[in-house]
């Protein structure tokens, strides 16, 4: 494999990326969320997303010949296999059946002459043998007859990888954060398996956030940031600190910013003890956290580590347990109404799903929760027996927020689905503001909105916190954004808080916290 270089135009997500990979080499790919790792791999794998958004620039060369994959199937034929972060396995099938899904060996029979190919019976013995071959090639212990639904996560991951390497032409394997869900022991086994593969001449691109693993298995490391390759390092000569620093980067931009140090109030508004949340892909375990009154607390961390699970669990959107107290009072978990009643509010990261009534007017969207929960904007007749909407009050409050947050819309009666992402986000904020909460959770408020709107949203939150003294807990994947607004930032790794630092701490330290387990080793 020689010289793979490509760039992605239109919306520049990747800029002039060049790298080469030799046969049997293990390449580590690291970078923050949104650095362009996934886009790069999607291009390599010929995913539909890329073509639908206008293709890519540059060239990919395999064995010196240029290739252009029209679909993942083409990429498969060329010997590229990919293991995605989410498993794509059938729970009711055994490991062997999953490994050879839709490539099952068949017994030919007379009946299939009449009814066609699909009436062939499956040759179980060969199926078993082929699956075992793949598993041995990977060098792990995995029972081919075990049902996927009964497997520990690690075995599912092995099944997935075995499926890729059971394809006869496999030459390059892309592993997208394969160890994120594994226990330490399983991760160790997987790393050994990667070494095995590389010894057999299969090249591996290994994407991970655990930098120690890179040092363990990779021959070289590519650090990406903002769609560029920042540096290509020799894995044998680098260190975790160096990679973490390169990953987070932006030394110049961050140091020039003016910092305001505020004294935090001593009284604690919310304390969380031993919280667990079962949110798929964002599992939270053993979170202990104190939120001070009036502070702006940031929760950061890499995707899939559980930071989003914390507010979702507390607000009762996913099954959760542990204890949460607000102003000394216990909050029943799993009861959204109780949370709202005790003047907490939540701006969800799922804007369109949880956040908005897409088919309703802006007025309705902003006023609805306040009306429902606090009986605001209602006129009472007959001693409260009959309640009518107070249209005037609703209109005026909507207008107020439209002005305050500079929401671009034709009128306060426009439907929520007609607004752009940024303006929808502002509506979500307005909705939460209208509840006048004492504590506000904001989850990924700037995800998928443009730079201008981003600044406005952050400004609005900051103002709300500083001027009205509302405590805000903001979850965000973008560290810079947290550092701009927050007083303290908690980093979540593996479902638990790995550290809380003042926002003025240099970003390298946050970077090290994000990669979690390797922190101790790094020091």
């Amino acid at each position: 494999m020689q010289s793979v270089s490509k760039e992605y135009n239109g919306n520049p997500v990747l800029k002039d990326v060049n790298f080469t990979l030799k046969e049997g080499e293990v390449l580590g790919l690291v970078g923050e969320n949104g650095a362009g790792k996934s886009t790069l791999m999607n291009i390599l794998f010929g995913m539909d997303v890329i073509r639908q958004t206008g293709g890519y620039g540059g060239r990919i060369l395999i064995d010196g010949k240029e290739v252009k994959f029209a679909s993942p199937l083409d990429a498969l034929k060329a010997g590229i296999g990919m293991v995605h972060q989410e498993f794509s396995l059938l729970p009711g099938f055994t490991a062997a059946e999953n490994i050879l899904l839709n490539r099952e060996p068949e017994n030919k029979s007379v009946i299939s002459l009449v009814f066609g190919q699909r009436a062939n019976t499956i040759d179980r013995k060969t199926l078993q043998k082929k699956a075992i071959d793949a598993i041995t090639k990977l060098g792990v212990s995995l029972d081919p007859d075990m049902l996927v639904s009964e497997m520990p996560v690690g075995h599912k991951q092995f099944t997935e990888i075995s499926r890729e390497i059971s394809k006869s032409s496999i030459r390059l394997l892309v592993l997208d954060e394969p160890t994120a869900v594994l226990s330490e022991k399983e991760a160790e086994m997987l790393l050994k398996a990667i070494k095995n593969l590389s010894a057999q001449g299969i090249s591996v691109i290994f994407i991970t956030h655990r930098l120690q693993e890179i040092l363990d298995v990779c021959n070289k490391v590519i650090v990406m940031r903002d769609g560029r390759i920042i540096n290509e390092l020799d894995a044998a000569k680098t260190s975790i600190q160096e990679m973490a620093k390169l990953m987070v980067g932006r030394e110049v931009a961050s140091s020039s910013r003016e910092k305001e140090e505020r004294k935090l109030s001593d009284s604690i508004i919310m304390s969380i003890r031993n919280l667990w949340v079962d949110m798929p892909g964002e599992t939270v375990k053993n979170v202990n956290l104190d939120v001070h009154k009036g502070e702006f607390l940031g929760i950061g961390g890499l995707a899939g580590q559980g930071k989003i699970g914390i507010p979702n669990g507390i607000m009762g959107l996913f099954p959760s347990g542990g204890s949460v107290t607000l102003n000394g009072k216990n909050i029943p978990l799993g009861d959204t109404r109780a949370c709202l009643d005790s003047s907490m509010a939540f701006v969800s990261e799922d804007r369109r799903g949880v956040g908005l009534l897409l088919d309703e007017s802006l007025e309705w969207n902003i006023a609805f929760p306040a009306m429902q929960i606090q009986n605001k904007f209602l006129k009472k007749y007959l001693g409260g027996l009959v309640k009518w909407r107070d249209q005037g009050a609703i209109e005026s409050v909507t207008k107020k927020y439209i002005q305050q947050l500079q929401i671009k819309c034709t009128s306060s009666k426009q439907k929520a689905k007609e607004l752009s992402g940024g303006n929808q986000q502002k509506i979500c904020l307005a909705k939460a503001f209208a509840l006048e909460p004492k504590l506000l959770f904001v989850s990924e408020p700037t995800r998928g909105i443009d730079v201008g709107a981003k600044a406005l949203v952050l400004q609005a939150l900051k103002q709300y916190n500083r001027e009205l003294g509302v405590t805000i807990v903001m979850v965000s994947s973008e560290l810079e954004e947290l550092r701009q607004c927050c007083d303290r930032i908690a980093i979540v790794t593996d479902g638990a808080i790995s550290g809380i630092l003042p926002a003025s701490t240099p970003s390298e330290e946050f970077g090290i916290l994000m990669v979690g387990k390797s922190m101790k080793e790094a020091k």
Partner: protein
Amino acid sequence: MKKEIDIKKFLANNIVPIIFIVLCLICIPLAGYSGQYLVSQIITRIMRNSFLVLSLLIPIMAGMGLNFGMTLGAMAGQIGIIFITAWNVVGIPGLLLAAIIATPIAALLGWFCGKMLNMAKGREMITSYMISFFMNGVYQLVVLYGMGPVIPLHSDQVILPRGYGVRNTIDLINVRQSVDNFWSLTIAGVKIPLLTIILIALLCVVIVWFRKTKLGQDMRAVGQDMEVAREAGIKVERTRILAIVISTIFAAYGMILYLSNMGTLNTYNSHSQIGMFSIAALLVGGASVSRASIKNVFLGIILFHLMFILAPQAGRELMGQAQIGEFFRVFISYGVITLSLVLYEIRERREKAESAKAIADQQKEERA
């Protein structure tokens, strides 16, 4: 401790068959039938219904739930039967001809139904239920007005005296029990129709074999996760349509066997009842929306129909009215279907709660 949980789990998973076994045990002494009578009745019912109930298995395997659209297959079977009665084709050749006529009709209806269900993924059951109502209208139009003037049928036995439309009930004297009587044994006063048994056994073998084919494997894959199956290159839509087509054709054959055993055709009612009763029988056998086996089919038919035989007599003994049994029959079928659908949801939710509990336990362990 572990055993206790197992018993609880066993009870929870088999609650429907257990309820029926208890009910039957209560009714047997009340009704006071002789053992010989009951056995011969049950054998008749198994012969009559198992083909129909077996036809439901394949869509369940493909993750499409209970195929209420089997009514379409029953209509196709009835059309075949109407033709051979009008043409006066007798005995087993008559039934074969009926099957030959019914096959393309059933395939076409099944293809149509499958197409529709692909547009309504995740809501297959309610959609197929409504389709069967809708097609019932088309069937009535064809049978009531089409037969005679448009489709040339001129048998007094079949067509109403006014010259068009099929009679309300048709006497199937030509084919009555011809399969059952072709080759049968009598053991201790109980008639055992060997050919029918062979046919049913054959279908069971076909279903077992089918599970092992590539198509069967694809169906199971599609049934578990359509997206994963699609990623692996399986043609999801086509596979789902095939599942419904096969089920509809089997239902048509099943209906033909059923009618020949009954000896009379209730032109405007038979098919709509049969769908409901077959599904109820399967569920009584312990099947769920997502899992059903041949064992469920036979256990279900035995329990469900035993109940039917016993209920009127028990009703008469208790209340002096046989009517109460008939009432019971309908009430039970709908009740069982509702119960099974609700239980299915509860089970899903319980599994989710278990995954949450696993995390809580894990946390406790880590802290300890």
